[in-house]
C-alpha cells in the first residue's frame, strides 16, 4: 500500500537589512527601472527544533554577485523581480511568472548547470514593490515545484535502521568535506558497510556508479524531521530527467536532517523513504508550477512589510526619544500622561535666548507642537547665546521665529514647529494711520494663536510686549508661563487663572510654616506693578535696555519655565492648582505630599533667582484688584470693546490706569504698597 506523500513548504524570513539594501539599490542603481535579477537566499544546515517549518532567509548579502558562504548556510538561487509601481505588482500574472521561471529552471537542468551545481535545485522567486518613501515593502515569495510530479510513499524508517552509529559518524565526516553547493543533493551508497557520498555529476555522468547498487537519493530535508520539504519534488523531476528508466519504479530516498545532539551534530533524526516515483516523461514546457507562499492570514496573497518603525531614521529617533520618557514613566512616574504632553500645543512669544532655551527643554519633555512669534531677524550677536541659531542664520538674516522652528525640525524631525514674524502691539506705542491695518491683523493673528494653543509662554524682551498676550490669555483662561531676566537675576512665574467671579475656594489646610494661594487668586506679571506699562525703551542707554544678562541666566530661566509648565500641566487642577509658599523662615522638613503637589512635585507661583548669590526662592502673590492686565475691570473692557479699547491703550497707556481704576499713588498708604508686593528689585526689571 502506498499513500501520496505530503510536503511542508518553506517559510520566508526577511532580515531588515534586505529592505534597507533594496531601498539603497532602488535609489542608486535600479531607479525607476523594473528589475529582474538573481539574488541569493539561504536556509540553515542544522535543524531548529523549536520551529514548525524551515526558513528561507534573505538579507543585505542576498544582492552580492556570489553567495556569501557560511559553513552552516545552504544557498538558495533566487529570481528577484522588483516592479516599479504597485499596479504592476498587483496585475503581474503570477501563474505566468512562475511557469516562465519554471521553464528557465528546466533549461538549467537540461544544459547541465544543475548537474555541476546541485544547489540550483533550491530556488525561489521573490516579487516585490518597494514604496521607499513610506518604507512599505510589498512582497511575495514562491518556492516553485512542478505540479505534475506526485510521489507516493511506500514505507519509511529512521536512518538508524539501515545505518549503524559508526556509519553515521563516517557519513557526517564525509558530509563535512562536501562543498556547500553539493551538500543539499547527492547520492549515498553503502559499499561493504562503508559510506560513500557521490555527487550528482559523478552519479549521472557514469552509468556504472548505480549499476547493481541500491542508492539512497539524498537530500537535505528543508522541513522538520517529521515531514518532507517540498523541494523533493524538483529533485525527483531532476532524477527522472537523467534516469527516465526510474519512472514508475520504487527508489530509496534519504531525507537528511541535521540536529544538535548535545554538542555534536547528528544525523539521527534523518529518515529513509521508499518512494514510488511518478510516471511522467520528464517535466517540460507545458508543466504547471506551483508554490506561491501563503501570507500571514493563510491566504494566497502578498505580504506587506511596514518598515517605518525599523528603517525610517526620523521615526527611529522618535521611538528613542519616547523611550526615555517612557522609562521615566515606568520607573519613577507611573501616572504621568505622556499622550497629553504630546498633544499639548505651546505658543512661545519671543524666540530669543529664552525662547530657544524653553523650546529645547520642551522637546526633551516630548512636546511636539511648538509655535514661535518674534518680530526680529537673527543678528550676528545672537547665535552664541540663542541656542537654536547659527552663524549662517545670521548671515542670511533669517526671521528668528522661522529660524527657530526650522532648527527644531533639524533637531527632531517629528516636531510640528512653526514661526510667525510680527510685532506684538504694545501700550504706549501709538499706532499711526499707515500701520492701522497691519496692527489689526497682528492682533487677530495673536488672538488666533493664543486661542489655538494650550500653554502661552511670555518670553519677550520688554515688559510692555507682555501686556496684550497677558490680557488675551486671561480672557481666554489659558495657561500662561512668564519668564523675565535681569543682569544676574530671573523671574519665572505662572499667571493665575482669570474668573469673573471668584468662588471662595475651599479652605486648604497648610502645614505649619506654609501658606497657600488658590490658582484662581494668583496674580499675573503685572499684578505686582501699579503703573501701566509704557515705552521702556525710550531714552535709555544701551546697557540699560534690558538686553545685558549673564549668559547662563536665560538657560536657567528657560529650563525653569518649561519645567513649571509641565508641573502645572500634570496637576489635577491644571491652572487652578494652588501655590504654596514658605511663610516662616527655617521650615526644616518639607513634606511635599501634604502640599497638594502635581505628580512632578510642587507648583509654585513664581521662582525668583539671583545668580550673584546663587539664591532662589518661590513667593506667591495674590491678584491685584486693579491690575492693568488681568483685573476684572480690564478684561471686561477688552471683552466689551475689543480692538477699540486696545487701540486706546496703544495710543495712551495712561488710559489703562483709568480703566483699571488704579489708585493714585498718593492715595496708597505705605502698607498698601507693601501688600501689593511691589518690589524695587523687580518693578524696574531688565527683561529679555
Amino acid at each position, binding site marked *: 500500500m502506498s499513500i501520496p506523500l505530503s510536503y511542508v513548504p518553506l*517559510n*520566508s*524570513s*526577511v*532580515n*531588515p537589512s*534586505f*529592505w534597507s539594501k533594496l531601498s539603497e539599490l532602488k535609489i542608486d542603481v535600479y531607479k525607476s527601472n523594473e528589475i529582474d535579477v538573481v539574488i541569493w537566499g539561504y536556509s540553515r*544546515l*542544522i535543524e*531548529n527544533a*523549536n*520551529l*514548525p517549518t524551515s*526558513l528561507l*532567509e534573505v538579507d543585505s548579502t542576498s544582492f552580492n554577485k556570489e553567495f556569501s558562504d*557560511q*559553513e*552552516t548556510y545552504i544557498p538558495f538561487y533566487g529570481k528577484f523581480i522588483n516592479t516599479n509601481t504597485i499596479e504592476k505588482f498587483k496585475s503581474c500574472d503570477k501563474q505566468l511568472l512562475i511557469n516562465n521561471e519554471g521553464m528557465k529552471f528546466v533549461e538549467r537542468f537540461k544544459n547541465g548547470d544543475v548537474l555541476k551545481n546541485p544547489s540550483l535545485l533550491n530556488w525561489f522567486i521573490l516579487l516585490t514593490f518597494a514604496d521607499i518613501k513610506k518604507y512599505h*515593502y510589498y*512582497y511575495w515569495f514562491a518556492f516553485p515545484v512542478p505540479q505534475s510530479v506526485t510521489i507516493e510513499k511506500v514505507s519509511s524508517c529512521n536512518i538508524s535502521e539501515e545505518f549503524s552509529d559508526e556509519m553515521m559518524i563516517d557519513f557526517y565526516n564525509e558530509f563535512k568535506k562536501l562543498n556547500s553547493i553539493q551538500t543539499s543533493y547527492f547520492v549515498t551508497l553503502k559499499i561493504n558497510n562503508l559510506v560513500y557520498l557521490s555527487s550528482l555529476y559523478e552519479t549521472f555522468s557514469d552509468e556504472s556508479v548505480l549499476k547493481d547498487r541500491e542508492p539512497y537519493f539524498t537530500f537535505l530535508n528543508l522541513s522538520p524531521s517529521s515531514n518532507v520539504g517540498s523541494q523533493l519534488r524538483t529533485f525527483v523531476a531532476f532524477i527522472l530527467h537523467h534516469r527516465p528508466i526510474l519512472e514508475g519504479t520504487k527508489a530509496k530516498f534519504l531525507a537528511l536532517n541535521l540536529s*544538535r545532539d*548535545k*554538542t555534536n*551534530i547528528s544525523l539521527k533524526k534523518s529518515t529513509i523513504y521508499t518512494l514510488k516515483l511518478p510516471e511522467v516523461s520528464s517535466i517540460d514546457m507545458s508543466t504547471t508550477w506551483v508554490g506561491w507562499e501563503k501570507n*500571514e492570514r493563510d491566504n494566497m496573497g502578498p*505580504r*506587506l*512589510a*511596514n*518598515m517605518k*518603525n*525599523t528603517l525610517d531614521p526620523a521615526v*527611529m529617533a522618535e*521611538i*528613542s526619544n519616547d*523611550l526615555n520618557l517612557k*522609562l521615566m514613566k*515606568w*520607573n519613577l512616574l507611573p501616572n504621568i500622561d505622556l499622550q497629553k504632553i504630546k498633544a499639548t500645543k505651546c505658543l512661545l512669544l519671543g524666540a530669543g535666548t529664552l525662547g530657544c532655551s524653553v523650546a529645547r527643554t520642551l522637546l526633551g519633555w516630548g512636546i511636539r507642537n511648538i509655535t514661535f512669534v518674534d518680530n526680529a531677524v537673527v543678528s550676528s550677536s545672537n547665535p552664541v547665546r540663542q541656542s537654536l541659531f547659527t552663524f549662517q542664520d545670521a548671515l542670511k538674516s533669517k526671521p528668528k521665529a522661522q529660524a527657530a522652528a526650522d532648527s527644531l525640525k533639524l533637531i527632531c524631525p517629528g516636531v510640528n514647529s512653526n514661526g510667525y514674524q510680527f510685532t506684538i502691539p504694545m501700550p504706549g506705542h501709538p499706532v499711526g494711520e499707515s500701520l492701522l491695518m497691519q496692527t489689526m491683523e497682528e492682533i487677530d493673528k495673536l488672538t488666533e494663536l493664543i486661542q489655538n494653543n494650550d500653554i502661552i509662554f511670555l518670553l519677550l524682551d520688554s515688559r510692555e510686549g507682555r501686556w496684550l498676550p497677558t490680557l488675551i490669555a486671561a480672557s481666554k483662561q489659558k495657561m500662561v508661563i512668564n519668564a523675565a531676566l535681569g543682569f544676574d537675576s530671573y523671574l519665572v512665574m505662572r499667571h493665575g487663572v482669570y474668573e469673573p467671579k471668584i468662588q471662595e475656594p475651599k479652605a486648604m489646610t497648610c502645614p505649619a510654616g506654609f501658606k497657600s494661594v488658590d490658582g484662581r487668586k494668583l496674580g499675573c506679571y503685572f499684578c505686582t506693578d501699579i503703573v501701566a506699562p509704557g515705552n521702556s525703551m525710550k531714552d535709555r542707554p544701551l546697557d540699560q535696555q534690558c538686553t545685558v544678562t549673564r549668559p547662563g541666566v536665560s538657560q536657567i530661566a528657560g529650563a525653569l519655565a518649561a519645567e513649571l509648565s509641565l508641573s502645572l500641566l500634570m496637576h489635577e487642577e491644571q491652572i487652578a492648582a494652588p501655590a504654596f509658599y514658605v511663610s516662616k523662615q527655617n521650615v526644616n522638613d518639607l513634606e511635599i505630599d501634604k502640599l497638594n503637589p502635581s505628580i512632578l512635585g510642587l507648583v509654585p507661583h513664581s521662582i525668583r533667582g539671583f545668580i550673584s548669590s546663587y539664591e532662589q526662592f518661590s513667593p506667591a502673590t495674590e491678584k491685584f484688584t486693579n491690575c492693568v492686565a488681568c483685573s476684572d475691570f480690564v478684561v471686561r473692557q477688552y471683552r466689551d470693546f475689543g480692538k477699540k479699547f486696545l487701540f486706546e491703550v496703544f495710543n495712551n497707556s495712561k488710559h489703562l490706569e483709568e480703566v483699571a481704576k488704579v489708585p493714585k499713588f498718593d492715595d496708597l498708604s505705605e502698607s498698601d504698597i507693601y501688600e501689593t508686593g511691589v518690589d524695587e528689585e523687580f518693578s524696574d526689571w531688565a527683561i529679555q
Partner: protein
Amino acid sequence: MENSTISIQDFHKYINAFLTISNDLLDEWKLNTIDQNIENNKFLTKKQVVLLRNPADPDLQIIATFEYHLVYNISYAVPVLCFNIWRQDGSRITLEEYWNYNKNLHDYNMHDTLTQMDHPVLNKPIFTLHPCKTYEILKEFLKTSKNPVISWLSVVSQFVHLDLLEEYLKSC
C-alpha cells in the same frame, strides 16, 4: 573599589577563545571588526530564530529572529549583551512587545534590566541588558573562571532567549 571590570585587551582575548569554540561547534557566532583605529572595534554577533510564545496567551506566537551582539562597553569596562529582534517580514519587535513575550524578566525590574541603549561600537539604538548589573555577576567569575565573559554570558543569556551550548562552559 573592588576590581570587577575587564580590560578591553582581555575582552578581545576572551571573545577570541569564545569564537574558536563556536567555530568548532558550528554555532554561528561571527566576529565583526570595524575601523582599526578605534580601540573598541571588535564584537561578536549571532543570529538565532526563536518561536516566541506569549505566556498569557499560548496561541499568540511569532517567529522572531534575534541578532545578538556581544560587545565591550568602555564606560563600564564590562561586556554587554545587546540584541535586535525582528518578525518574519523584517519589521522590528519593540521592547514593550518583547517584554510581553518574556516571562523570565517579569520577576525583575524589567525596565532597569533590559532597556534600549546605544550600541557601544555601532552607536545605534539596540536592546541591551543594562551593564550596571554586570559587575555583580562578573565579580565572582573574575576570581574563578578562565573565561569570565563566557561564565557571565551563561548566566545572562537564558533571560533573553539566547541558547548557549554547555560546551562553552567547559573552557571556563
